[in-house]
């Protein structure tokens, strides 16, 4: 009661927010608007499907919703579903890190007070405010995997990947977002959607060019690559130019040793890895001193050696890496040295730097 008397406007503000969230299916984002002084006008700003809250009231509103929700949670007060939803909406918009609040929402979804599809939309809005929050992604996955359970339609999957990519765009090295994308891809592979991997492989390639130090994206690509090289059903959707790359990497002798007619699939997988290896080289040439690029390169070499473990490939790789390391030593000194050391200890490829 004490809180109500202290700031009676809180209830009005949270109701206004709830109205906007529930009535506008196109709501894009939520953010705080810096306004330290309070005026006697509504701090809720709503323009062009974007929702804003003036910063002066955040602390009072959050205090109010937090205390009310905790009373409800402790069952000190009889829960009324509508009121709880209103409070939860504001609480989670302001602070999506509280698992208890998400759990309360989960209960409301189970009791069918909240619709799963609207919840996905709400999550997307919260993600615009806090793109890296793991709780939001957890909740989203819970809705997808335990409530909707429907991965047959491509729209659902594409929507998830778009949301993940948006979050990745909004926050650097957003591991949670990429991880979410990968979970969705894994699920849709179970439903036979093999084209997805190839599609994501192409899309993220562009993305990587623009975010060279984002190791989370690289890691996502590594996980995709693992699928591509181990599952034939995935790689067949990729437009490959394997032969040209093989030509560039191996001389004709080595090629003959490698290529037996029955193993063109192996040729294709090596083609993908080589493609990525050259792409990585281009990026290293363009952007100096990015640890993520060198780490990615380590993974590619490791994969290459482990997929096709013959001495022949090690030899070719050694020559190639020697060239790369020598070319880029200037400007990347520390990373090159570490890289050479790593090649030697883990893959037994020794390179003498000039």
């Amino acid at each position, binding site marked *: 009661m004490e809180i109500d008397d202290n700031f*009676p406007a809180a209830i009005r503000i949270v109701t206004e927010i709830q109205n906007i969230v529930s009535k506008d299916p196109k709501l894009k984002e939520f953010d705080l608007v810096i306004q330290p002084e309070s*005026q006697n006008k*509504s701090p809720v700003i709503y323009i062009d499907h974007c929702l804003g809250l003036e910063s002066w009231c955040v602390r009072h509103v959050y*205090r109010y919703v937090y205390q009310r929700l905790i009373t409800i949670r402790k069952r000190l007060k009889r829960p009324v579903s509508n009121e709880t939803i209103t409070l939860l909406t504001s609480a989670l918009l302001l602070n999506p890190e*509280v698992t208890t609040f998400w759990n309360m929402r989960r209960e409301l979804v189970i009791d069918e007070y909240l619709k799963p599809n609207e919840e996905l939309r709400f999550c997307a809005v919260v993600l615009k405010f806090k793109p890296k929050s793991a709780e939001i992604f957890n909740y989203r996955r819970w809705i997808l995997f335990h409530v909707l359970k429907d991965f047959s339609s491509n729209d659902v999957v594409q929507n998830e990947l778009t949301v993940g990519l948006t979050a990745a765009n909004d926050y650097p090295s957003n591991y949670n977002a990429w991880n979410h994308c990968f979970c969705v891809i894994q699920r849709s592979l179970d439903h036979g959607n093999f084209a997805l991997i190839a599609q994501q492989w192409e899309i993220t390639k562009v993305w990587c060019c623009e975010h060279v130090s984002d190791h989370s994206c690289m890691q996502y690509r590594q996980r995709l690559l693992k699928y591509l090289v181990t599952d034939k059903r995935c790689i067949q959707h990729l437009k490959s130019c394997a032969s040209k790359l093989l030509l560039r990497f191996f001389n004709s002798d080595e090629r003959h040793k490698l290529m037996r007619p029955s193993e063109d699939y192996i040729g294709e997988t090596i083609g993908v890895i080589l493609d990525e290896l050259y792409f990585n080289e281009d990026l290293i040439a363009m952007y100096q001193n990015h640890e993520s690029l060198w780490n990615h390169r380590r993974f590619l070499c490791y994969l290459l050696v482990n997929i096709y473990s013959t001495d022949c490939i090690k030899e070719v790789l050694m020559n190639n890496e020697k060239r790369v390391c020598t070319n880029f030593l200037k400007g990347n000194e520390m990373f090159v040295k570490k890289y050479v050391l790593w090649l030697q200890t883990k893959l037994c490829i020794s390179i003498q730097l000039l």
Partner: protein
Amino acid sequence: MTMETLARDAPSSMHHHNNSSVSNMKHNYVQLSKTCLDEDAQINKKLPKELLLRIFSYLDVVSLCRCAQVSRAWNVLALDGSNWQKIDLFDFQTDVEGPVIENISRRCGGFLRQISLRGCQSVGDGSLKTLAQCCNYIEYINLNGCKRITDSTSQSLSQYCKKLLSLDIGSCSIVSDLSLKAISDGCPNLTSVNISWCDGITENGVEALAHGCPKLKSFISKGCTRMTTRAINCLAQHCVKLEVINLHGCNNIEDEAVIKLANNCNSLKYVCLANCSLLTDNCLVALAEQCYQLNTLEVAGCSQFTDIGFLALSKTCHLMEKMDLEECVFITDSTLFHLAMGCPRLEYLSLSHCELITDEGIKHLSTSTCASEHLAVLELDNCPLITDASFDHLINCHNLQRIMLYDCQLITRNGIKRLRTHLPNINVHAYFAPVTPPPSTGNSRKHYCRCCAIL
């Protein structure tokens, strides 16, 4: 736990499974305690059954269920039908299933007069049929929010509960006109009905009701968008004793309906026409001419009403206590002037979004008798012309408890502070941050969860 007491058919069924040693022990213990407690217990010796029964008759459902678990003798007494004349499960437990209702009905039988199953969503037609069959003397039944019930429930009620006085089937979205037809056939004494948010009900149902239940005093149909002028006309013609009518959101209603209501039902006390946007001043004039006993008028969103209507009203309806004029955008200070003169008992006045109201109007209001003695709640949110000068007049309203000032941008923090010095107990609603900030940050953070520190 307590609901299980209700759900059980007979108290003895409790100790049937003694397949393990623990339950054997329990069984022995219960037998032992039975001989110790039941007949020979001190309280049962001192108090004869009649007295115990009398005491139980004052208890509510929760306490009765607790008493029923004390001993076998008490179980019989506490669950005696005579104690169960009024049942309200809403404050107790709403997630009850059909069998509970069926057991209640068997236990209560003819004793049951009032039952409220508000919000019991899982209750269906079958159990309510049993209820109607067992308890023929129900006078008051509340089924608000029992979303699974259909017309069949109303038919059972109509068939078995002829004495029904009050029926609430608000938010039961499946029921249709057939329900009202059945009720009008079987329950001629009905005085109060609530059919809010029943989308299936049309003018035909209401007409049948009006014909069959002439004693109707209260008719509540919020959000029935299919309600028409013809239905209300019919109601006005046959149910002349109407005192309470709520047509919130019945936006097809026209002047003619309200005029007919005013002319026929002169004892109207409560009228809600909120969001009936087709209505004009003619309604208010008609109400003013015929219904002198009016004490509550809610006309939020009736944006065609002007000063003329309220002038007429304030000349005759001197008993007015509550007026909600939200979004009657045409009214000016003149309305306030007349209300101040004509309605000395006004306690609650809402002028939200009445954008033409100025300090002058507040001055008139504050100097009247209603203001100084009765006015408790005044809502002025979104009245952009109100300034701090209003507070100089409002300090005369000694009874004022709550004032809403959201979005009145000419109001300042200092103005509110001044008002508070004169009226220390007033509750001011505005968007200003609390005057006394929560205790210093260092201490208060500890009460929050770890994440709140981020904010």
